[in-house]
């Protein structure tokens, strides 16, 4: 498992350039351009189960959901950040991508540290240090646990 480290204010244009917004929508179309202007070899080297460790205001900018779709599709287990931009945070819930807001864990990380997540307990272990993070409210966990918002909406429509 590799930890990919990025800094503060990584915006949606760096995660997925706007010029592709109206021509690439599916995960297959998105992946080749994922993080193109930030880390051009990321999409080739990333492996299922990898994590991102990021700074403040990750995902700021557009309401563009392709970065979330792409990161979920390449198998990112979770993004641990100092903080996330609002629309990106919401988009992650809607796609079932796990975001952990835990500045202490980000600051404690040293290269080569192992990072382990326990979602049930709301704990993240970085090297030999352990940190707590707030769990999502139950209403919102229902969306994530359904596999994302559309699956959740389908479930509710079927119940009607």
């Amino acid at each position, binding site marked *: 498992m590799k930890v990919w480290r990025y800094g503060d*204010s990584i*915006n*949606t*244009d*760096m995660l997925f*350039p*706007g*010029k592709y*917004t*109206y*021509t690439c*929508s599916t995960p297959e179309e998105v992946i080749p351009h994922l993080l193109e*202007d930030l880390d051009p070899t990321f999409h080739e080297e990333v492996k299922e189960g990898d994590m991102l460790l990021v700074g*403040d*205001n990750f995902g*700021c*900018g*557009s*309401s*563009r*959901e392709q970065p*979330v779709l792409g990161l979920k599709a390449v198998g990112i287990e979770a993004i641990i950040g100092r*903080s996330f*931009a*609002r*629309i990106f945070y*919401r*988009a992650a819930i*809607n*796609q079932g991508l796990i975001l952990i807001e835990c500045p202490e864990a980000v600051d404690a990380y040293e290269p080569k540290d192992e990072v382990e997540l326990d979602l049930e307990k709301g704990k993240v272990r970085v090297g030999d240090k352990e940190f707590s993070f707030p769990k999502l*409210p139950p*209403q*919102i966990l229902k969306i994530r646990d359904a596999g*994302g*918002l*559309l699956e*959740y*909406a*389908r479930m*509710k*429509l079927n119940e009607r």
Partner: protein
Amino acid sequence: MGYTFVEKVLARKAGKKEVMPGQIVTVRPDHLLTHDNTAAIIGKIGPELDRYGIADPEVPVIVLDHVIPASNEKTATNHMRIREFVERFGVKNFFDVGEGVCHQVLVEKGLALPGQVIVGSDSHTCSYGAVNTFSTGIDRTEAASILLTGETWLKVPQTVKITLEGHLGKGVSAKDLILTIIGSLTASGASYKCVEFHGNIERLTIGSRFTISNMGVEMDSKGAVFPFDNVTERYLKAAGAESEPVWADDDAKYHSEHVFEMGEMEPSIATPHKVDNHRTVRELLGLPFHQCFIGTCTNGRYEDLKTAATILKGERVSKRTRLLVCPASRSELLKAESDGTLNILLEAGAVVLPPGCGPCLGAHQGVMAPGERTLSTANRNFKGRMGCKDAEIYLASPATVAATAIYGVLTDPREVKI
């Protein structure tokens, strides 16, 4: 204890007596805005649309604006699918290519009203705070879900109170004001919060308030709202709209409070590649620009074009640069045409683009070459935003961009005639 604007609006919308920050409520938004991305949104829910249809044909507002007219077969096909969808489900509010940027169109057609809740699959949906609407951006998946179910969840945000004191000086505009505020509070300074503007707002036109609310998302706010006053009332009456305004109580509880003195503000710019990189124009006078751009939902209205025309009357755009003008809507373009504003811009050498998003997002029109630099009235200067990662974008007011177009280098608009 009193309530903030957003607490009142969300309580009313959720059918509750009161709501508290952090509480999650289910609401049925008054409108759902989508644009060219409608094609991708409906592409996610084909079978569900066949089976259930859409929740309410009155709710969606669809505006084709991002890549118009279509630039290639793919974008043309997207537009075609959207027109078919509109026809099939009887979507009441559809605006085809050429009407303008979605946010401008929504407000000028009287579709965003005081006290309403509007969500849209575009981050600048927060613009309607200018007319006392709670509006915020969502992603495409959520837009697809709302098309089907008509409802969504919102966490009641805390609120940041910004009080504006004094008055803007000559040559200083709403754009300079919001660039100054974002520079001070930072690009994440209002994260997950609603921003309320209080104080001396009576001289700020709806266009100016639009510029300010539009850029609320650049400090990551969930909404950026103004109170309803005589200015809002006159504007909405002209748009033929009724309204039920809402505003915060005097004893509302805020996350934080800030006071800004407008008289101290100066013509401002945001330097690459972050909107909170605030500098005054005076600090960087003489910086060369290859391209000057006036337009977008932030600053493409008649009053912005008029400001530019006042500066450019009888002048020529410098051979060292080029000036692109992209009106925010057909109606704003018509106003500029009827009083000669448009003529002045054309005679000065401006390239006038069809009303829409134009060069702002780098999908077509006005893309830069590596090493080039644009001075833009848009809202974002992210690396790669205008289609080239090795180019630079600086943000400024229409007056600063127009003054700069004359000389090809950064110019203080107060130094030319205004």
